[in-house]
Every structure is written in C-alpha cells, then in structure tokens.
C-alpha cells in the first residue's frame, strides 16, 4: 500500500484510513457529514498527494499534448489550466487530466492516482517527439483547500493577491514562506484552491493551514466527503462514471472535446465528432431516488421493468439531504423527469431523472476580480 507524505500525520490525528486505488488514505477525520458541511459552509483541507503529476517539456510539448488530449491546449496562456482527458480510439477516456501551462514549452499534467502507471505508459507509447516526458508524482505533494472561506483563509497567509487569480488559473508564489503553486481548481463544487508543495514540507504546511483556518471553520476533510461533494456537483469519477468503455460525449464531457481544425487529429476524434453532431446513443444522467433507499455503485437501473443500465455513483447527499446518483441510460430515456427505478437489494425503488449539477453554489459568479475576496 502506498502512502502520501502526510500518512503519519493522518494516523496520529485519529483519521479513519482506507485503501483507495492502491493508497492508504484518510476517509474521514471527525465524520463524513460534518466534513462535507464544513466545505459547503466554511472550508475543508484535503490531502490529495496521491494524485499523479507528469511534466511535459520541450519544443514539441504543445504538439504532443494536442494529439494526446481531447481539449485544445493552444487556447491556454501561461498560468492557465484546462480540464481534459486522454482519448482512446472509441472516444472513451483512458483517464481525465488537468493540463497546466507553465510556459509555451512547459506543461504539468495531473492525473488520477490509480491510473498513474497506465497513463504514463500510454503517453510514452504515443511517441513523444522533442519532448521530455517525466513521471514526477513523488516530487509533488498536493493539498486541496476548498469552501466559501478558502480564499479568505489563504489570503491571510500570502502577499499574493488571490482576487486576481481566476477559476482554472494558477500561480507560483509564497504562502507563509512556503514556495507553492496555487491553482484555483477543485473537485467539490465550491470556490477553492489546489496547492502543490514539496513533499518534504507538506506536513508543516498542512498544520500551518489548519491552524490558520481553524477559527474560520477550516477542518481536515477525507476522501469520503470528497466523493459526496464531487457527486453533488456532478463531477465524474474516472473508473466509475466514465471509463475506457464510455465515450466522453456520453459522459457529458463533450465540452472538453475540441474539434478545432488547428488542433488536428487525436484518438477517437471521428467518433466524438459524430456523437457531438448527432447525439450519443446513451447518456450519463443524474437521478434522485424518490422512494426510500440509497442507490449504490453497480445497482441495476430499470425503465418499465426493463434493465437499462446501472448506477455508476450513488450516495446520500449530505447537503441536499437526498439520495442521488448517476447512471447511463439510452438517449431516449435521458430527459429530465423520466421515471426510473433502482433495484436496491431486489426491491424496485422509484427514481427520477433530474437536472444537474444537483448542487450549484449560490455565488457561482464568484470568484470575480477585486470585489468578492476580502483580505485580512
């Protein structure tokens, strides 16, 4: 079992640890629901150092990423990040990825922990030319500071003006004397940051952040809350809501597929172009269980007693106080309001297709420059 540099600190703090994608990770500290609510109402700090980091550098970097990722990397400017995926010939994602442009010829890719080796091997097989491709996952620790008070908490520790850092932008700066990369990204549906820091310093930095944010309601939050938060925000989890058999368009990720002529060809482009034009045969939809019971990953989904698919992610949603989930259904059954049933331990429980995201933060317009973030 692999461990992040914070493993000992998690264990010392009494966190409940579970195996996740080959890693020994904290699932909860004080309790899943209280951590979930802290992120919705104040802030939570997550150790996501298990995520993988690849550096792609050199004169061929842009061309290489244009043919190995689905989105249009040429649209990025220095200090900007982009949600994307490694597309396969069938239009499905090998993995989803965030591409960070540090300079015109220097990029950082952040990938899922359980897919690090697979992704890296695949990238090597795509024949990088004039590119240095390196798996630097052990050289980065990564924390996610998420919630409506995240900016206020972080701003108190840095001279860098966070109000100028827009969503999906990042900066290399100092936070309380630590050299870090701060990115305005996350996996919770809230405003917040993902912060790259040296593995040698991450334990001290983790404690510093928790101390600084304590009176503003910051708590450590585990993978349990991370999963319920991302599902309320309808963010897909690779390996559950999408995998090597589900096309990006089916998963609702057509918006990260660029058909821009200048981008050129990439695996699955023809399939994805056809599905964007004519619609995919099936769609990933959000549903709410209207009867009693919690839908879980793998439970069958029925329409008029006919099995149409299965739950890819399902949970009790702590903020919404509803039972929600995602599943693939034939495109004809995907309309909001469609009545479904979930087979919960051989009991057919009614459910209904609902609009997503299930949860949208109230100040979705924020962060906007200068006005919304108060420095203290």
């Amino acid at each position, binding site marked *: 079992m692999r461990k992040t540099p914070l493993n000992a600190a998690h264990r010392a703090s009494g966190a*409940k640890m579970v195996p996740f994608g080959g890693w020994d990770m904290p*699932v909860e500290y004080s309790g*899943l629901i209280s951590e979930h609510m802290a992120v919705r109402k104040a802030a939570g700090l997550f150790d996501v150092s298990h995520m993988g980091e690849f550096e792609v550098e050199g004169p061929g970097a842009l061309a290489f990423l244009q043919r190995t990722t689905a989105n249009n990397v040429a649209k990025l400017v220095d200090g900007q990040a982009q949600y994307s995926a490694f597309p396969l010939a069938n239009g499905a994602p090998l993995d989803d990825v965030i591409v960070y442009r540090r300079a015109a010829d220097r990029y950082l890719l952040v990938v899922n922990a359980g897919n690090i080796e697979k992704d890296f091997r695949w990238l090597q097989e795509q024949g990088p030319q004039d590119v240095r491709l390196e798996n630097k996952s052990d050289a980065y620790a990564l924390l996610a500071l998420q919630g409506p008070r995240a900016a206020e908490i972080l701003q108190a520790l840095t001279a860098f003006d966070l109000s100028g850092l827009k969503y999906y932008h990042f900066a290399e700066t100092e936070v309380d004397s630590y050299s870090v990369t701060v990115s305005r990204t996350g996996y919770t549906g809230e405003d917040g940051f993902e912060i790259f820091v040296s593995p040698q310093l991450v334990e001290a930095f983790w404690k510093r952040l928790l101390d600084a944010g304590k009176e503003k309601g910051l708590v450590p939050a585990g993978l*349990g809350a991370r*999963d*319920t938060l991302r599902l309320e925000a309808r963010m897909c989890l690779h390996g559950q809501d999408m995998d090597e058999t589900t096309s990006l368009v089916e998963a609702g990720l057509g918006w990260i597929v660029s058909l821009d002529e200048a981008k050129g060809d990439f695996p699955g482009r023809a399939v994805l172009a056809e599905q964007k034009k004519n619609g995919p045969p099936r769609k990933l939809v959000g549903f709410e269980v209207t009867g009693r*019971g*919690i839908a879980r990953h793998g439970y069958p989904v029925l329409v008029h007693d006919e099995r149409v698919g299965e739950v890819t992610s399902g*949970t009790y949603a702590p903020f919404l106080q509803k039972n929600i989930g995602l599943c693939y259904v034939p495109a004809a059954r995907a309309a909001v309001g469609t009545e479904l049933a979930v087979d919960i*331990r051989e009991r057919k429980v009614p459910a209904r297709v609902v609009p997503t995201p299930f949860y949208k933060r109230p100040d979705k317009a924020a962060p906007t420059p200068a006005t919304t973030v108060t420095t203290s």
Partner: protein
Amino acid sequence: MDPADRRYTKDHEWVRVEGDHGTVGITDYAQKQLGDVVYVELPEAGRKLKEHETFGTVESVKAVSELFSPVAGEVTEANTALVQSPEALNADPYGKAWMIKVRLADAKAVDALMDAAAYQKYVESEAK
C-alpha cells in the same frame, strides 16, 4: 463502556432480556465503524427470526451493513422512530436507537452470548 445489563455477539449486536422479551440493537463499536448513519431498514412486527438471521439493513453515507439477529423469536415491535431519524444510532446506540423487540423462542439461549467484559476483549482483539 458497553452496558453490563445485556449480551453481545461477534457481529456487534446486543440483546437485553426482560422476561420472555429481548430488545436488540447494535453496539457503540459498530456505529463508530459505520460512521454517519443515514438509513435504517427494519422488519415488520410478526416476522419470525432464526438466530443469526438477517433482520434489516443499516447504511452510513459510505457503507451498507446487514443486521443479524442475536436471538430466535418473533418480532413484536420495530423502532419506527429510528427509521425516521437514523442519526440517533450514532448518538445513542444503547438507548433510543434500539432496533427491534423480540418474543424469545428460548430466553436461556442468550446466556451463550458474550457478556460486556468478554465483548470488550473481543473488540480489542479485533481492532489489532
């Protein structure tokens, strides 16, 4: 600590006997292992249970667990207040969050289960 007025199973259920009736629930250790409980499913009165038979389900946000009856007998009452407010299981597993009352087929059979001290030792050995 686990109350001394009842008996315990290796599946982390408890039963407290009064006359020919037993009240059944799950232990403090069990609720801690589960985490925040958000769903409880219990049987209707009249259901006949064998010892160790599944009588319901408890779910936390992350996990589903089956409930095993520590005793044989007939269910006379299920705690509907717990079904309405599953979070009571985290707050008061030995009190308000009892699950079912059972007319015991054999009140003596309960003596074969662990007492509080033996259960305590069992939990400590399991935690290692």
